[in-house]
């Protein structure tokens, strides 16, 4: 679900379409939208699993404060997906615990 005409962000159909990969699966996105928005629009609600209880987490505050939505983006763990804009060819991974370094 997306907003087709936004008073500030403009019309959706004028945005540039790009591709990103989420856990190896390619999905369509719009350049510049937050990664979290792409995931939500594609029905992906679990972004990571917590360190202690392995509980699922996704969007919470959606404005960059709570760090609940962090994922591994282009190999960098703990990236806040709600404030990180989409770029073509991004590799997004569901993060377990604190993630892993390459």
């Amino acid at each position, binding site marked *: 679900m997306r907003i087709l005409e936004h008073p500030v962000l403009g019309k959706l159909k004028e945005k540039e379409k790009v591709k990103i990969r989420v856990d190896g699966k390619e999905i369509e996105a719009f350049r510049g939208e937050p990664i979290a928005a792409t995931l939500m629009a594609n029905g992906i609600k679990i972004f990571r699993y917590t*360190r202690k209880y392995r509980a699922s987490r996704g969007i919470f505050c959606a404005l960059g404060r709570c760090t609940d939505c962090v994922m591994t983006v282009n190999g*960098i*763990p*703990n*990236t806040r997906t709600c404030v990180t804009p989409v770029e073509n060819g991004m590799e997004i991974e569901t993060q377990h*615990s*604190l*993630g*892993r*370094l390459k």
Partner: protein
Amino acid sequence: MAQMTEETEIVVIGAGITGITAAYYLLKEGKDVVVIEKNEVASEASGANAGFACRPSLLNPTLLEISKVALQEYQHLGQELKYDIEYETCGFLVLLEDRDSLKEWTHQVEERHKLGLGEVGILDPEEVHGLEPHVVRPEFGGYYDPLSGHINPLHLVPGLAERLTELGGKVYERTEVLEIKTKNQRVESVITNKGQIKANYIINACGAYAGSIGRMVGIGIPVKPHRHHMLVTEALPPLVHCVVEGGAYRQAEVASASAAGESKAAARTGAAIINQQKKGNLLLGITGDFAGFNKLTTFDDICTISEMAIKYVPLLKDLHVSIIRTWANHYPSTTDYLPILGAVGGIEGFVIATGLNDYGLEVGAGIGKVVSELVCFGKTTIPIESFNLSRFH
């Protein structure tokens, strides 16, 4: 609030690692102990340090012996407390970047082998890289001590304080000593803002603040507050295994000491210290300077520490790692870099235990044990005469 009046055998002033462990072992010997603390448990150097549980860098056989006791104690103290003290012998690695530091640390290794610490050695650059793949490969290898490690002082010291109260000891926080009364050259009582406590023994374990307590009984204790800055980052995946130190610090330390012909800790000092805690946060350090009792952090020090960390672990920059807290605190510094420990001539029952410089945790529980022996039996298993205050007079 009604003023308290009570009697006990031993009053310990200062609830840092020294005071709390001393009280803990005294209690285990069946003594009646009260710990009084101006602020809160572990609110000074014991709660704001790099979490080193290493063997001290100073080549002093007594200190290394006390450290051995401390590290042995940490092995089992963890099981006695409700808190995970996160003690791990993860190793201590000093990166060697020039010929001089290689020479200096090769000498350290030889001397340490003579003192029975056979495990320490010099690694070549490849071995350092194998051990710490995320750390910049040092040209001249590294000094490695596999039996050193780290601990979480914020679990250890408050954990012990809590255990102490469970066992019947008392810990009074926010209680400030105003006066110490003596009679016939013997301690008699401590007057605090909350009332009076009579005691046979008073242990001054006030770290950098020990001087003010000393003045109450008319003695000078030469400890100076040495300010140290540290930072802590967000939790990260496993990045470093050892406690890692960049070589710069000790060179600066030694160079300035010989130039000034005085204290090893007497100059502005700095080292990249990278210590990853169990939860994944990195403790980054450290810069030291003398700024009186000023605890404010400076932006320059925070930048210096961040830059040093990035120099040795460039990945920190690529990962956009966030700093979540910074602080500065006072280490009790002495001019000869040795502790001040033991009884005081002319004031019976007054015992000093301070001056642990930057190795407080590394020897802490050992110092506590030695102090408790001194009070209980009048003698110690490890001879500490060389640390007596009398050496300054």
